[in-house]
């Protein structure tokens, strides 16, 4: 889970793994590690989710947190244009550090879609094209959350089977 601070990475994981959402914003230090088992094409997968601290003006994501990743979810908050820029730079950093890996794009906080910035969305269009899937999600209402993670799982399964 990569993205700017306060875009909802931890909330998405919490909703997906524990079916819990809290209105209270709690910042992440380091990385929170969760495990989720899911069924895809009659196969059981264990997904180890690394919810990495959000990038902000004072700290960027350290490359060591990317070690061993099989795929990633980029999370952006279209109500905050600055988070789109962070998403783009993070994707670039992943590519430079470990090469092309499958990723899914989450446009979070769809429950307040009326506050989304249209220019920001236009900015992320190209990134969306590169992803294996782009989802409008809301950790608050659970919209698109399962689809988001399952899309990445499906993609990992496919790439694993073909390799």
């Amino acid at each position, binding site marked *: 889970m990569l993205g700017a*601070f*306060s875009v909802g990475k931890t909330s998405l994981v919490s909703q997906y793994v524990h079916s819990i959402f809290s209105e209270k*914003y*709690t*910042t992440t*230090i*380091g*990385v*929170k*590690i969760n*495990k989720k088992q899911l069924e895809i094409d009659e196969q059981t997968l*264990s997904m*180890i989710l690394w919810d990495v*601290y959000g990038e*902000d*003006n*004072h700290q960027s994501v*350290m490359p*060591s*947190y990317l*070690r*061993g*990743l*099989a795929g990633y979810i980029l999370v952006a908050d279209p109500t*905050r244009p*600055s988070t789109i820029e962070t998403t783009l730079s993070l994707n670039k950093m992943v590519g430079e550090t470990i090469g092309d890996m499958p990723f899914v794009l989450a446009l979070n906080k769809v429950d307040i879609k009326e506050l989304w910035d249209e220019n920001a969305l236009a900015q992320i269009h190209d990134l969306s094209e590169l992803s294996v899937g782009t989802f409008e999600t809301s950790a608050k209402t659970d919209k698109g959350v399962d689809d988001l993670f399952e899309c990445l799982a499906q993609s990992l399964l496919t790439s694993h089977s073909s390799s």
Partner: protein
Amino acid sequence: MDTEVSKAVSQYVGSLNLDNREFAFFGLDGDNCITRIGGSVDQLGFSNVKLGQTAESQLSFLEGLLSGDNKPIVIPNAQYLENRFVDLHLFFDANQPWLLFVDNTEVGVGLQKAQQVRLDQDILEESPQSELGSPADDEQHKYWIATEKLFTAFSGSDQDIDEKINNILNIGLEYFQSSCAFLTSDMGENFTVTNIVGNGVQLLEPGEVINADIKNKIRASAASEVHTVNGPFGCVCFLNENKLAYSLSATDEKFLIAVSGWIGNLLGTKEQLEFIEAQSANYKNLFESVPAMLFLCDAEGLVISVSQQFALQVGLAQDEVPGKICLQFFDSDNHGAIRNAISTGEALHVAAKLNCNHSKALEVELNVSEKKFGAMSGIRMVIATDVSARNQAYREATEQNRLLASANESLDQFAFVASHDLQEPLRKIQQFSSFLEEDLEPNLDVDGRYHLEVIVKASEKMSALIKDLLSFSRAKKAQPDFHLVDLNNLLTEVMTELDLAISESGAEVKFNALPVVQANGSLLSQLFNNLIGNAIKYRKPDCQPVINVTCNAVESGTQICVSDNGIGFDMQYANKIFEPFSRLHNSIQYEGTGIGLAICHAACEKHGWSLTAKGEVGVGSTFIVELNDA
């Protein structure tokens, strides 16, 4: 490889600044199976991790981490458990991976609080409805950013304490926009500079004592006292050459206090580390030079440190032993017991043989105890005591006792056979002496009559001696049957046997309420016959003998005492009187063979009882039979 693993961990851990934080480590083989486990595994949530299984199968959060190149990485503040922050280190030694987990919860929680406040502020600022932007809000924002930096500087794990202090000073430098920051240690009137950052002020050098002249130049700094856990340390100062004085707001004051607090914390840790280091050096020196064979190892017997004496015995240099499995120094027959003792962590008197390089194996006794050294728990201290000489002495003593018992048995046998076989020729001497006396009596002159009389008396004495010797031998050799014996009845019978002696001496023998005991009647009869007979024999002239036989309950059981008002004896002979043929008086004064009390002693031994005597010359004697009630 296995013998070198501890060095890899200790070198890596030694390069970190752990500040007494808990840590756990795992060594992996080429298939990522766990081959070594150490440190505070329970505290860090790894109590179920087992050797011989892959790390990923047991610690699923490691999935993917262990694949790839052998590049070491550090993942700070990994939260695989709720509310616990752990720095995860992956490093390699000879291409073998090692995982080190260092607890960082205290710093992580603090960092989270600071970051939370700052990001809340950032979110508000981003909000179009934000009313922030006033000077007061800017100042608050600046404060939170600087505070978070302090947390980060404090929590850095790859820096030493002075580097951390300098980082904190630099953060303050930036905060106060000053040109120079430094620490001073308190030396009373004057101060010594210990850390300097920035270059705005050229008049200070580390180690310089600040005198009154310099004090006047730097008095306009923003400064705060620094305290460590051990008391006042000095001050942290921020200077600006362009300003005589800072105008510190309440927020600035708060930040200055935070800076001095963090620095005090670090300096306290430094002082403690220096103390521990000094103590450790002393301890290591003491441990390694102690003239005893001892070593420290982990729960699997991997030697960590060793005394000079131990290294000498096994024929290795002192620095060659650490990293080896201790079992290799002991005889293979002892490996099971030693492995069990070390695994348990507490064991006493474990017998083992220490293989020595230059001599035959030493017999040793191992005492194992579990110790904790700093953050390293579960260390085993093994003390090997050389018991070769003791065991040899024990074996020799056992052999001597066996030979002595055998000789005593032969002697007893000889005494019995000799005394028995002597009876017949003696009887012949007595008989034929009697014939000679009868046949030659009328023709014997004075000399001849005297010579015959000597032969008769000597043979009578010899007969008595042989009789007593036989009694003594029988008492020693007897395998008696035990029955319930009423001592009152037994004493009555004994008095009947001694009737003549009692009436001749006018003795008064008193007894009552004696117990019934499990005993051999024949031996017991002989015992009391001898004791009462002796009391009558060794009476004082012109004094009626009074003999009391009493029974007393004492702490150790029951005592039967035979006391008299006779001539008594000197207590220095209290033991000697029980030896065979031992006499305190010659046979002219008191006739006898000196066997009687020896027979009494042997009779008591046969019952498992003890016989002792007390006496006072001219007052009387008391013989005490202590019954074994059990």
